[in-house]
């Protein structure tokens, strides 16, 4: 093995320019695959977070409620009108995937901000929520319980610290990231139990507590469509099944973008597979030429006693060394490209509040190792057949330049 590796290295060193070109070609392919795979997985994770954070596909509120469409698909808007909390659970609408109930009360004199500032208190059900918790950037390491509150990004308070709301102590359980939506930025989020416990302190227009503070009543529902369902189907199903409700749809292009990006990522994956395949073919063609050029040398090696396995082994090791080196170089180039990417586009995206979640370190190492191993496998596969074919020939045919 050491002898074959040594011969392979010497052969690579003999044709430095060609070896270097081969290494560079494989490096480009491996670099693209490594960078592509890492970014693709990162974009995929970011998309998962981003789209989850984008909230619901539509909102269902009491008929007659006013809605702010900008904030609508993150939280419902505070109104005096309410719906039953188990409305969707009872209806069982097939085109609705998830329906997260929310309670909202806009309050003053809560003690949270200065005296006249209004604050949105938002109640949600952690078991059904899919629009609030995805924004959590930090939290106490336990489940949320009664008396806990989550603060919007614009509020400063240490985790675990005490926050008085209408004089009642609450614990800061977590904080949300920047959403760009006022309701979230300055809102105080809590479970329904915590929310309803404030009933004695919050006063509605009539003087008594608003209806939304009653148990079993909510301001509205944030709805996510069932897979394959269209907003139109869901809207008709909801309006025909539920009485006294209004359906507010968000930007329907969001689901289009989600599907489009998924298709784009699949397209990139297909391109990467094609690129690796074409590199394997290129290596194979190159090694066919190398074997042809070195027929005399291979014939000589066979004549002096090299076995077929040794001939094939020498050529395959030579290819694996070259393509493996190309793989390592490609990963190094990929890391550089990703550093540039991080300092430009990712920096920009994060500045405007769009999350970008990099793959974690161990997974990046796995992707890098996979790129190098795949590059080496390409070398092995690409060189095996020409080497195997040459090894079958009689030494005399090879020495004479045939075969």
């Amino acid at each position, binding site marked *: 093995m*050491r002898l074959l590796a040594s011969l392979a290295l010497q052969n690579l*060193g003999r044709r430095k320019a060609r070896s270097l070109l081969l290494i560079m070609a494989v490096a480009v392919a491996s670099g693209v695959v490594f960078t592509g795979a890492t970014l693709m997985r990162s974009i995929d994770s970011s998309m998962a977070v981003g789209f989850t954070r984008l909230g619901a596909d539509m909102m269902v509120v009491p008929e007659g409620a006013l809605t702010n469409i900008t904030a609508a698909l993150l939280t419902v808007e505070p109104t005096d009108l309410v719906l039953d909390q188990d409305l969707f659970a009872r209806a069982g609408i097939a085109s609705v995937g998830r329906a997260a109930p929310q309670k909202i009360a806009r309050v003053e004199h809560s003690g949270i901000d200065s005296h006249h500032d209004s604050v949105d208190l938002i109640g949600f059900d952690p078991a059904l929520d899919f629009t609030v918790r995805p924004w959590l950037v930090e939290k106490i390491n336990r489940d949320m319980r009664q008396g806990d509150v989550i603060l919007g990004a614009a509020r400063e308070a240490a985790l675990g610290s005490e926050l008085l709301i209408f004089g009642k102590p609450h614990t800061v359980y977590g904080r949300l990231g920047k959403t760009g939506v006022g309701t979230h930025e300055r809102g105080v989020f809590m479970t329904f139990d915590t929310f309803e416990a404030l009933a004695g302190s919050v006063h509605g227009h009539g003087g008594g507590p608003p209806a939304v503070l009653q148990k079993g009543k909510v301001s509205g529902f944030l709805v996510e469509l069932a897979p394959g369902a269209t907003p139109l189907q869901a809207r008709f199903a909801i309006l025909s099944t539920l009485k006294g409700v209004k359906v507010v749809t968000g930007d329907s292009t969001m689901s289009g973008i989600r599907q489009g990006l998924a298709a784009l990522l699949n397209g990139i994956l297909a391109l990467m597979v094609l690129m690796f395949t074409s590199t394997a073919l290129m290596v194979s063609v190159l090694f066919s030429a190398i074997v042809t050029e070195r027929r*005399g040398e291979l*014939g000589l090696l066979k*004549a002096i*006693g090299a076995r*077929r396995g040794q001939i094939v082994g020498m050529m395959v090791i030579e290819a694996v060394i070259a393509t493996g080196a190309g793989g390592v170089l490609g990963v190094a180039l990929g890391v550089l490209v990703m550093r540039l990417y991080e300092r430009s586009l990712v920096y920009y995206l994060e500045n405007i509040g769009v999350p970008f979640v990099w793959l974690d370190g161990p997974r990046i190492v796995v992707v890098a190792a996979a790129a190098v191993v795949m590059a080496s496998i390409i070398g092995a596969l690409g060189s095996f057949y020409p080497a195997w074919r040459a090894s079958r020939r009689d030494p005399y045919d090879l020495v004479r330049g045939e075969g």
Partner: protein
Amino acid sequence: MLSCRGLRKDYVTERGEVAAVAGLDLEIATGRYAAIIGRSGSGKSSLMAMIGGLSRPSQGQVTVDGTDIWSLSENALAAFRNKRIGYVFQFASLLPTLRLVDNVALPAMLGGDAGSSATYARAAALLGQMGLGGHLDAYPSEVSAGEQRRAVIARALINEPALILADEPTSDLDEQTEIEIMDELLAVNRERGTTLILVTHNLALAEQAEQIVHIAHGAIVA
């Protein structure tokens, strides 16, 4: 003892099948110096390749010391070539990326004697015997054609073969170098008792042989 029975080699060409060696019988006793002579295209090299296990015959048998070499498996034949036969080709047949000492040690290393100091000591000693003791670390391109050919003879001897096959080993050398190379080969034949089969055009070289095999059109004519 080397024995060929009904040995035949056909090549397929655009003009049809051509018999390079046409059913040839031959015996060469162990330790002999035999010369195979004939005009270009007479089938000398094809015969030599079949005797040396380099080219599979279309028909017939080659037996070396009782072993039918073409009935051996691929790996066994490779081992046979490695251990029992030394080749001196008509072209410079050293690997250009290896030093002379590496080239000489290579057959032993391929045979499983990889990297041992004894192998390198033997290779150095053989190169010394060939007058190349001062060129152990030289690369083939750094020595003359005659020195390269001597290194090839040293390589042929590294595994102490029973048979040396030399296919026009001096065809591209000057007269003086030719004499020196032939002296080396004949010394191996005489001193080690190694059977030497030489393919040559040169009748003067052939006249020194104990057995001359004259081939024309793939058959022995004398």
